[in-house]
Structure formats: C-alpha cells, structure tokens
C-alpha cells in the first residue's frame, strides 16, 4: 500500500498543469472557477467553447479507450487531471454528462453505429447531453416511470410521450437520454427502453424551474410524441433498466476527485474569510473548520481506496457504496459552516434582487446534494441492503 505517484505520473501532472496555465487565460479568464454546482447555467457559450479548446489539446474524454479518441488514461492520470483541473480553477465541465455518463454507457451497451455517431461529437466538445430519468411520480422510486415510447412501423420511429422533471441543463443540451416504457402494460423495471432523444424538435418542450437560489439549472421537460429514430434505442426494448443502472455505475470515484478540489477551493475561501473577519478566534468555528478539513482529506482517501481496489472489470467493492452519502453530508455541513463564518454578513447579498455570492449560493445549493443522485435515505437503504445484507424494504 502506498500513496505516492510515480515519476511518470508526476510528468503527466506537469504536462496538464502547464497546458492549463497557457490555455485557461485570455478569453477564458471570465470562466475560471465558474459553472460549478449552483452555477452550472452560467457562461454556457464560453464553457462550450472551452470544451473545444480542451479537445484541441487532447484533454477531453481522456479515460476513454484510444479507438474512441481517448488516451486510455490510467486511474492515476485521471486523478491527476481532475486535481490539476480544479487547482487551475477550470470551469465546471459543460461536457461532463457526455464524457462521464453517455460515453461509457455507449461504449458498454451501444452498437457500432451509435458509437460512430455520438462519441466523436462528445469528444470534440460539440454535443451536450442531459439526463431524463426523474418524473413527477418517479423520484427515488425511479422504476415508476410513466413516460411511454411507442414504435411506429411506418416511419420506423419511436414516439415518446410523458414528462420528465428536475432535468439539469436541459435548455443547454442537444440531446437527452430518456428512460421510457416500451411496453405500456409493464410495471417496475421491466418493459423499459433507453432512448437518445434530440432536444431540438417540436415534440419537446422545456420549462425552467426556479430554484431556491433564484436561478434555474433544472427544468421540466415535456415529451409530446417526440421522435426518436429506431437507431437510437440503446439495447433492446426491455433493456432500459439494465442500461440505466449501468450508466449510474459509471458515476464513480474519478470525476468526484475533481469535485473534491472544488470543495477544497470552497474550504480555502472559508478559511481565508475566517482569518480576515476574526471568526478564526472562535473556538467552535476552529473545531468545525478542522472537522471540515479532516472530512475532506478522508474523502480523498476514500476515493483513492475505491479507485485502487476497482476490479479489472470496473466492478466496485461494497465499500464504495458509502461515497455519495459521505460527500453529500460533508458538503451540506460545509454550507452551514460558510454561513456561520460569514456571521451577520451572510444575510447581505451582493446586490438586488437576489445576487448571491459564491458561498451563499453554495450554502443554499448544498441542500440539493443530499437529494439528487439518490437521496441520503436511499443511500442508507442501499448500504444497509447491498453492503450489509440487511432485509429489503417492503414495497407497496
């Protein structure tokens, strides 16, 4: 067991760090540190242009196999990339969903034609994706989706109807991957399909939802006979659940290491503030800042452990199941700590009507961390049942 990176890895670190230093500047100065959680809808054009810049440098999709344009970067290299990216205050990745969710899913479950059509434009930073899982009646109970897909033999098209909700970045995306019922009589996780749906069509209507931050990253997406070609179902009708769950499995440690550097930037900002406004003298605040530091360091070792012990087939140990619950709870506490360090100033905004500063926005938006991607309660159910082997929840 060891923590050190190899000399080769350190060279890689220098390579990405110096590339970022000479490219994340000039026209891209405005997006440094922007576009993170709670700020994802901001500077969208600049951040899309930045994705293309990254592609030119060979820095998109580095973990993908070379045949799809990736570098087959080792876990260590991906860790380093994410660390350096966040250290350089790289903007929130507009291409994140395509690179980390859609790409691996298509590589694992898609056919050659789908890979040929979709992977290159994700790689080049030209196509952006959003996730159409949740519905008004299907939140934690995702298998309860009601959106339907009907196949029309004449046009060789699927027609999709129903409603998705909480769809992040739908307005900024070109495609949405949607789980919908291919068998209208089915229930639960049977009879579902996984569809790649173009957003820009008359059958798709997007309505932004205003969040507690006053901003609107997520949306309602209405499908009214939205068209999806026969070529754009991943797997067979009925395979939707398998593909949908496979996709969630790709949402694992590596990209979260970049997220940890964002957390580090936030904690550093809180520490600087505490030193400047005198709250660093408050013994309770001192304890809480130290606790936050401990929690974040351990978060890093959690992911390094998970990444180091990942099976050759990408399978994870049961220990990895604590990850989401751990970081979401940590970040939620950090939000409260930020406000307490700001003290009375925490209430006062940068300007009207509702201009939040970064920490205020983080405080409010961190309440979402324990909800999306499986709420804390759902995470606890999963840990108890799948990692500890305790009895399953009764179902209604």
């Amino acid at each position: 067991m060891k923590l050190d990176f190899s000399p080769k890895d350190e060279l890689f670190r220098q390579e990405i760090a110096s590339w970022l230093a000479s490219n994340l500047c000039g026209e891209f100065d405005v997006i440094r540190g922007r576009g993170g959680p709670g700020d994802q809808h901001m500077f969208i054009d600049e951040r899309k242009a930045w994705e293309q810049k990254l592609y030119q440098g060979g820095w998109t999709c580095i973990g993908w196999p070379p045949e799809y344009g990736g570098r087959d970067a080792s876990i260590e290299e991906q860790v380093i990339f994410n660390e350096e990216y966040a250290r350089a205050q790289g903007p929130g990745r507009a291409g994140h969903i395509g690179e980390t969710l859609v790409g691996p899913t298509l590589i694992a479950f898609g056919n050659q034609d789908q890979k040929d059509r979709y992977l290159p434009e994700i790689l080049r930073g030209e196509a952006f994706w959003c996730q159409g899982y949740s519905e008004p009646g299907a939140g934690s109970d995702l298998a309860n989706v009601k959106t339907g897909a009907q196949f029309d033999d004449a046009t060789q098209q699927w027609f999709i109807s129903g409603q998705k909700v909480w769809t992040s970045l739908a307005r900024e995306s070109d495609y949405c991957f949607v789980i919908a019922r291919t068998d209208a009589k089915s229930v639960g996780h049977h009879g579902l399909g996984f569809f790649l749906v173009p957003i820009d069509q008359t059958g798709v209507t997007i309505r932004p939802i205003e969040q507690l931050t006053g901003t609107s990253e997520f949306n309602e997406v209405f499908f009214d006979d939205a068209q999806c070609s026969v070529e754009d179902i991943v797997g067979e009708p009925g395979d939707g659940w398998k593909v949908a769950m496979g996709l969630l499995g790709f949402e694992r440690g590596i990209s979260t290491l970049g997220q940890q550097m964002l957390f580090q930037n936030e904690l550093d900002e809180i520490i600087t503030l505490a030193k400047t406004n005198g709250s660093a003298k408050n013994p309770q605040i001192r304890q809480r800042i130290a606790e936050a530091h401990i929690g974040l360091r351990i978060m890093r070792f959690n992911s390094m452990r998970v990444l180091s012990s990942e099976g050759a087939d990408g399978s994870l140990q049961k220990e990895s199941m604590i990850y989401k619950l751990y970081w979401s709870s940590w970040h939620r506490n950090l939000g409260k700590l930020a406000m307490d360090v700001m003290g009375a100033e925490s209430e006062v905004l940068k300007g009207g009507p509702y201009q939040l500063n970064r920490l205020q926005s983080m405080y409010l938006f961190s309440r979402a961390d324990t909800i999306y991607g499986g709420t804390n309660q759902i995470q606890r159910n999963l840990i108890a049942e799948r990692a500890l082997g305790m009895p399953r929840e009764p179902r209604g």
Partner: protein
Amino acid sequence: MDFKFTDEQIMIRDTADAFLAETSTSAAVRQVMDSELGYDPQLWRRICDEMYWQGIHIPEAYGGLGLGYVELTATLEQMGRYLCCSPFYASVCLAANALLVAGTELQKLTYLPQITEGKTATLAHTSEAGDWSSSGVKVTYQKQGDSYCLNGTYRFVPDGHSADILMLAARDQDSHGLEGISLFVVPANTPGISREWLPTMDQTRRQGQLQINNLILHEGTVMGSAGEAWPQLEQILDLGRIAVAAEQLGGSQQCLDSTLAYISERVQFGRSIASYQSVKHKCADMMVKVEAARSAVYYAACVGDQFFNQTAGASELAEAASITKAYSSDSFFHNAGVGIQLHGGVGITAEYDIQLYFKRAKSTETFLGASDYHRERLAILLLDTQVTL
C-alpha cells in the same frame, strides 16, 4: 499510487485475524480483565514466539522483521477488533518507536533486541493534568555534573506498572513549554522509581502511575538531544496516535459486526428488528464511519512508512496523526454507542461484549489527546498563519 493492501499484507492481516479469533475470545479477555497485570503472559509468549508481531516494523539489524507501518497497523486493527489484552501497544507502538526515533545506536542495539525477545516496555510522559502534548511534560530533572536527577509523578502510563523497560520524558526544572524536554531510557527496576497499577474503567488496557524520587540517570540513558527532545517526543506520540487509531478502527468494525449479528437474530413485532428502516439507517451510518476511518488509518499508515523512510516530514506525520486519531476516535465512540442502543437491554448487561467496546472506545479516545485536542491542533495549522492577500 496503490492504495490497497498487497497480497503479503492481506496475509499478515488474515493470519492475525485467525490467531486472535482463537486466542483472544470473549472468555479469554474476561479472564485477564480483573488481573493486575491485565494480560495473559502465556498469550504474550505465543505472540512473541509464534507470531513475532513485536518485531514487525523493527529493522532486521535490531532483530526485527523489517516490515513497515502498514503491516503494523494491519495487525493492530485486528488486535483492536478482538480487544486483545497484551503489552504489545506500549512495547512496540510507544517504546520501540521511541527507540527508533530518538535512541542512540547503542540504545537501539541494547533495547530493541530485548523488545523483539518479548521484554515489555512503555513510554511515560503525562502527569496529573493529563496534557498529552510534549509541552505538558511535568516531571523535572536537574543536571548534576554528568548526571540527571528526576523527580515527579507520571500518570496514565500504558502498562506503566508492569513494563520491563521505561522511556521517560522529563523537563529541565527551570524550563517551560516545549523547551528543556529530554528523553531517557532505563530498566524499570532502577532505584528511585516506584510504580502502581491505576485501576481503569476500560479493563482491557492497563494504566500505571510512576512515582519518581531522586532518580539519578547518567548520560548514557539520554535519548535524542538533551533539552531539545520535544520534536522527537512529538513524533513518537504521533506514531502512537496512528497506532491507536488502527486499533480503534478494528473496534469500530467489530461494533458494527456484532450489532448486525445480534439484530438479525432478534425479532419484535413479528419481524426481524434488522428490517426496520431506522435500524438499517443507523447501521448504514456505522458503516460509513468505519470505512472512512479505514481510509484515514491506511493513509496515516502510509505516512508512517514515509516518515520512517524519510520521504515525509514531521509536519506531515503530525497532520496525518491528528486527522486519523480524531476521526477514528469519533467513529469508534459513535459505533459503540449506537451498538449499545441497537442491542436494547442486553447492551447494558456485563454479559454482552458491546459494553467492553464502549469502554475501550472512551479510553482510547482520551488517550494521547481526544478529538477536540486534535482538531485544535489542526486548526492551528490551518488558521493561525497570516493571510497573504
């Protein structure tokens, strides 16, 4: 980066697990719990002769196995899990470390082979106030020509009443804070040292009190640099903190495991209590705390290795020790407390082992500085430097 056990380390861990499952049973622990010595000398002999754990991280030149801190913590984790009662912690994780960090070559050659042969040893540095930092050393010495005369009282000394060899921290009688600290190594039967057992709430660990009365020590007993040994003392304590955190990790894991075993047998309202969501969620939280503690301990163990091979410095060691000790203490206490709650009435009985873990959690939390002490230590690092704007 390869942040997982090697096959050899897994073997070391599993061997420890198998040996302790057989030798450190609940009955065996309870048998030695009331004794003044606090451990079974025959079990200690077997550990030293058959397992050779006492030599794990001691270099081969001094009769050890020459393995690293990772191997040591892997073994400690299992000892903590089985509440193994032995002089291992004091002898190896305090005393042998003290020799490795601060001993002269001659002292290492004299004492380390004694430890690898099964002699017991410990480190004494705390007094009445229970201040675990190096600046809290209260026992004083007065330089008299070529020798030192020590006076004062040590409390809370692990196996202090029974260890064969003692490492003593004392301060120049006119010094304050971190100044004037010296370390000495002496056989415990040296005149001027009287010792007694301090009965403790956690009966799986022993503490002793040492009365030091005009103890005269010659130059050859001085470890490290006389009067300037606080950095070495701090390093020894940090290594000890990582080691105790590893034991806490094992204890924390056992609280979860034994609770799971109990609740899956127990039925109320016609169903297993393990099927209630509030019970499941508590167990999930316990697992989070164990696994996070595990990540912290393994990281600190790697830093321990880096410290010994001089790729990490004292400040990295200190940070790792405080992070790990604070988190593991909280994890263990949380899991022991929740463990009692989920046991219901039987959790309050002497019969069930969960109470032993609850007591061990508290005693190890206090030992070498509780969590708030370590958080404050980190806060100094994080907050007490000027902002450069």
